[in-house]
């Protein structure tokens, strides 16, 4: 591939890149290196003392059943959120794509939750579904469910998952709708003439064409599930009850900023980084093979 000469001098290019590189170094790479470094120490907060302990913090994580539970929980949560968000958004986008009247209105309503800050969304659901005071609590209890996610772990986990999905639907709908609008009308027409039903058309005709977008969304949603859902946990459950919603990002926040165990928390953040990094790698490899990029 021939190099294109966009800039007259290398210095010009470097100068333009500098701000991005600097910000990345200061706020991303340097703290990452520092976190790795800290993960090898036992740090005393307030005293400035730090004892080098080697891999002791990692050994703690290997033997902690709480931490294993938290990892398992987080993976389950991420799967539930990614699958939930993407299947629900796909159906919503499809319905919006198909509808004749009021398309814009539907689109805006679907995207709206995305405009809400996560902490605000957390508070809204907290009060909507509060076991004693919630507006929706009594109606739901009519169906024979005793709403008490302050005490019931599975309920709390389900609730956080639903809220996380609800919040992320808007983001997915934006990309999916855009992608669906790019599908050539001729294809839709052919499918129709061949008597392909709606659901089959969505799954076997549209989805494969949308696969690059879907692959991108799978990656973004995974990152969201791992990192972007912190506020819901913080506002609604504080990781409880009994650790039922103690996903990795909240767990390490609690260790670092409530318990001041910076060493262990840094080790946890390194592990979290490796888990998410590994997942990204797998996702890219899989989608490279299966996503349809035309041609």
């Amino acid at each position: 591939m021939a190099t294109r000469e966009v800039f007259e001098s290398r210095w010009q290019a470097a100068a333009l890149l500098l701000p991005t590189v600097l910000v990345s170094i200061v706020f991303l790479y340097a703290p990452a290196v520092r976190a790795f470094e800290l993960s090898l120490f036992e740090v005393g907060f307030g005293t400035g003392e730090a004892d080098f302990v080697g891999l002791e913090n990692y050994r703690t994580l290997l033997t902690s059943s709480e931490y294993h539970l938290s990892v398992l929980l987080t993976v389950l949560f991420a799967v539930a959120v990614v699958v939930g968000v993407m299947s629900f958004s796909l159906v919503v986008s499809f319905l919006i794509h198909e509808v004749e009247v009021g398309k814009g209105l539907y689109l805006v309503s679907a995207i709206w939750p995305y405009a809400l800050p996560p902490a605000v969304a957390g508070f809204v659901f907290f009060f909507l579904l509060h076991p004693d005071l919630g507006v929706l609590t009594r109606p739901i209890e009519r169906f024979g469910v005793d709403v008490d996610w302050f005490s019931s772990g599975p309920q709390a986990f389900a609730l956080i998952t639903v809220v996380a999905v609800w919040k992320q639907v808007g983001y997915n709908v934006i990309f999916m709708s855009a992608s669906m609008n790019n599908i050539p009308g001729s294809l839709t027409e052919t499918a129709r003439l061949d008597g392909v039903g709606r659901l089959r058309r969505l799954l076997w005709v549209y989805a494969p064409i949308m696969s690059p977008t879907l692959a991108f969304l799978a990656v973004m949603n995974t990152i969201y599930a791992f990192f972007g859902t912190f506020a819901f946990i913080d506002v609604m459950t504080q990781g409880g009850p009994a650790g039922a919603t103690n996903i990795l990002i909240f767990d390490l926040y609690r260790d670092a900023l409530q318990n001041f165990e910076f060493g262990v928390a840094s080790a946890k953040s390194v592990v979290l980084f490796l888990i998410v990094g590994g997942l990204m790698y797998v996702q890219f490899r899989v989608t490279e093979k299966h996503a349809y990029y035309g041609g």
Partner: protein
Amino acid sequence: MPDRERSGGSVRRSRRSVLRTSGAALAAAGVAGCVGGGGGSGGSAEPVNDELTLWHAMGGGNGETLNALGDQFEKETGISITMQFQDSYESVLTNFLGALESGEVPDFAQIDSLFAKQVLDTGRVEPVEELLSDGFPVEDFLPNVTSFFTVDGTLQSLPFNNSNAIMYYNRTAFEEAGLDPDDPPSTLSEVRSASETLVDEGVVDAGITWPNHVWFVEHWFSTAGQLLFDAENGHAGEPSTLLTDNDTARDLYEWWRGMAADDLYVNPGIEAWGQATSAFLQQEAAMLLTSTAFVAGARSGAEENGFEVDNAFYPTVGEERVGPVIGGASFFVPSGLPDDRREDIGAFLEFMASPDAQKQWHKGTGYYPIRQTAVDELASAGWFEENPMFRTALDQLQESGDDPATKRMLVGPARQSQQIIQDTSVPVFTGDTGVEEGLSKMKSDVENELA
């Protein structure tokens, strides 16, 4: 006073660079062993402000009362002081530890008694006893209060807003249910039978509520005369275990579980002080366990919601009643501040501990006064007769014996222990985990933190 700023800047810079370079050098060389990173506890500290600065966690009406005391101090002494509200005890703790580490410090930090040990362990605070003038009547402090804050024979921090937990109850609901509002339950089994009556009569949805906070478990242990940690709750050495293998613990959790199973108890959530209070004020539950600092709020809240409120001693697990643990916070002072400033700091501490300030504070908030003189003056002015609700916590405190169990836990990993106790309580009272199983898990998890 320009000389206050002298040399501080350079000290700070060198301390920070020491921190940074020592960390980096260590990692690069991979040296094992123990290293003192900071400038050491003997070094001087630099104040965050020219004027005296207090970091506190008193919001709302309590915050206003505190600010009024600050204004009064300024007027009387001509020394200026800034009161900085920092949202919660947890935030004050985080910020104060960060300040101690950086060497740029406030003059006072209001630290929750739960976290006292964590702050003491930094070795960067000065015992307040050394800041009080020689003539200060230390013996006038209520002994049950200062005994907690005295470590190694020295008063380490100045107790200021202190409280214990008491039971508030809805007199109107008691009357409607045919219970005697002048004879509130005093044990857990009486709480249960009163709750059953209240719910059966259809007066309220549930009998009782309280925030799931370790302080309440501490109270049940201390009123039963049962230590929660070994080494006298941490006051006679380093504790190594949580004492859950006893009847107090078993009876407490069996009761709690039964109350939850029969819907006699409202679970407001972990550390959900506000939720518990509102469940009581909305008359969902007829009894509430919470701090004596809620007295003023209970009175106005009950009036708003149209019922008559009263309070009583904390209900005990068994028949025995030893005494409550203290709660609330004290003022810590960093070490290494310049001498002329230390004089002003001492003046402020003495002002806040004065009978007048303590009386004003008590009346405005419900925290009990920490000086015997203040108690006597309030009594002779008829304050307690007019306001019997303010009396309860103080009686509860003063009737308490000098039992080691009534000294609140003083442990380094207090926050972790607190979280373990609170988190593990949930599956036990919901019935997801057996009582024995839950208690032994609580014990081993806390042991891991203490190890």
